[in-house]
């Protein structure tokens, strides 16, 4: 007990180890990184944990959720950690709550911060699209998933790293999930990650018929047009224009949002922008928490006026 077990995503999210290090210190336990892969290559790259628990099996790469869940289950049984920590990546969505259910432990998701005190943890989590934050008392042992936006620090190498192996669970031989093929992002001549200026529209744009308002502003600013997930899911702009967790991660000089609420999944893709200006009619919109400049206003009025000024 006292250990903090960190699931290392196939994308090798070592910043999660930096996030979890103070928790291991508070618990007086070891920081254990669980790395599942086809071989030891990925595990060898992890240097910021006290223990790197490596599981190698052909079924573990490419990633399929069922295989990784079986490994996490085995690791929890083997180490009995106080806390199991995931990043809220796609794998985190697949695995974190499921690992909690399978091990009979409580689960808290969307964590922005976490402290440990004896037999309990206190989590601060984003809720209602980031509009509000909940402070949650969590009995230990528990499982948590941390939002990517909360992972800011790079990890430091541990003074010494113990490398341990975990036997692949037998479930890996009878999986009902198979990897078929990888699909690379479609190349439609748009690369938002290279844009200096981006005008991003959110749900507040209201419909595909209103997109030209934003396009005219983007043209006047010499900017690319981008969208948050609800806009793309509604078919108002193509997927290649999406910024956020499952879209592009961008760091432009200017990121101007029109009717974007600022859900954590969107913020993850754009918080590195040098200048963020947000226009939204809802004064409580979460986007105002991360924008450098904000305006509570009708986006159409402001966009039209700004386009006219830029065109003068």
């Amino acid at each position, binding site marked *: 007990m006292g250990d903090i077990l960190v699931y290392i995503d196939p994308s090798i999210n070592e910043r999660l180890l930096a996030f979890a290090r103070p928790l291991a210190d508070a618990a007086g336990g070891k920081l254990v990184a669980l790395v599942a892969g086809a071989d030891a290559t990925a595990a060898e790259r992890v240097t910021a944990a006290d223990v790197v628990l490596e599981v190698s099996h052909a079924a573990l790469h490419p990633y399929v959720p069922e295989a990784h869940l079986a490994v996490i289950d085995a690791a929890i049984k083997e180490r009995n950690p106080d806390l199991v920590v995931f990043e809220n990546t796609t794998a985190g969505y697949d695995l974190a709550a499921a690992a909690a259910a399978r091990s009979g432990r409580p689960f*808290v*998701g969307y964590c922005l911060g976490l402290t440990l005190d004896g037999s309990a943890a206190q989590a601060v989590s*984003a809720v209602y699209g980031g*509009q509000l934050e909940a402070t949650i008392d969590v009995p230990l042992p528990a499982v948590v998933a941390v939002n990517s936006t909360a992972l800011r620090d790079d990890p430091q190498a541990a003074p010494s790293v113990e490398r341990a192996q975990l036997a692949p669970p037998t479930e890996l031989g009878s999986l009902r999930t198979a990897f078929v093929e990888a699909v690379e992002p479609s190349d439609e001549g748009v690369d938002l990650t290279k844009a200096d200026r981006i005008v991003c529209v959110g749900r507040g744009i209201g419909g595909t018929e209103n997109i030209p308002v934003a396009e005219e502003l983007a043209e006047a600013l010499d900017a690319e047009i981008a969208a948050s997930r609800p806009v793309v899911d509604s078919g108002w702009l193509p997927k290649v224009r999406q910024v956020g967790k499952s879209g592009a991660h961008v760091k432009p000089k200017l990121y101007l949002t029109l009717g974007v609420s600022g859900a954590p999944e969107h913020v993850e893709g754009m918080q590195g922008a040098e*200048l963020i200006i947000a226009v939204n009619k809802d004064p409580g919109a979460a986007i*105002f928490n991360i924008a450098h400049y904000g*305006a509570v206003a009708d986006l159409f009025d402001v966009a039209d006026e700004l386009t006219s000024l830029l065109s003068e």
Partner: protein
Amino acid sequence: MNIVVPIRLMPNIGDELEVDDSGTDIDRDLVEMVANDFDDQALEQAVLVKEATGATVTAVGLSGEGIEQALKVAYARGADRIVLVDAGGIDPYDSRTAALAFAQAVRGLEPDVVLVGVQTPQDLFGQTAPLLAAELGWPQVSVVAGVSMSDGHARVNQEYAGGRMAVLDLTLPAVVGVQSASSPPRYVSMARLRQAMSEASLETVSVTVSAPAGAPTVARLERPAPQAGATMLEGDADELAAKILAVLRERGALSS
């Protein structure tokens, strides 16, 4: 082929939400409840599979204010059956207990697949897809954009950061956490909605669940403190546009 789609009502997060006097929940008297966005996507995906394969789509919802109406809307959108699950009162944050209630209902309906929205704005204690799959002992894939089905298998596109995707094959029965349907949810006319309201017949099942021991509890709910540096601009649209332009010039953000 039978597909179950859980429908969950959520506060409309496009509105400004207020914390109630208890300090641990939103003021639910003031909020408009709407069907969870991702559940709309899951339902659309189910109807697309139905159109391709002749599957039967069953929408299920846990008892609560407004859910009967939401299930009838699901019927109008293409569900063949709508089932109200009477699970007693469940704390709105307690997605974990809700998943146990959905699991009991799903066992009775014996579907080949459950398509459920990947998340909700208040599922702090776990997303339904992984919790439901763990309870049922079925394989699960979340963050899925596009599902097709044939011969006891589901093919799903799972999305990762940066727009990367992989195609995974699931042997049914399985649970899929849907982020987006293969094509956007279709428009349903008012006439179709009115017709559905009168002809939809609601089935009811009862389940008994209790919250797992040692559950987390919300101690406080509050508006996050804005990060330093956020400056709110004031004025009417003309003034705001002029102020934004001034900021753009000052920060050298305009193209040269």
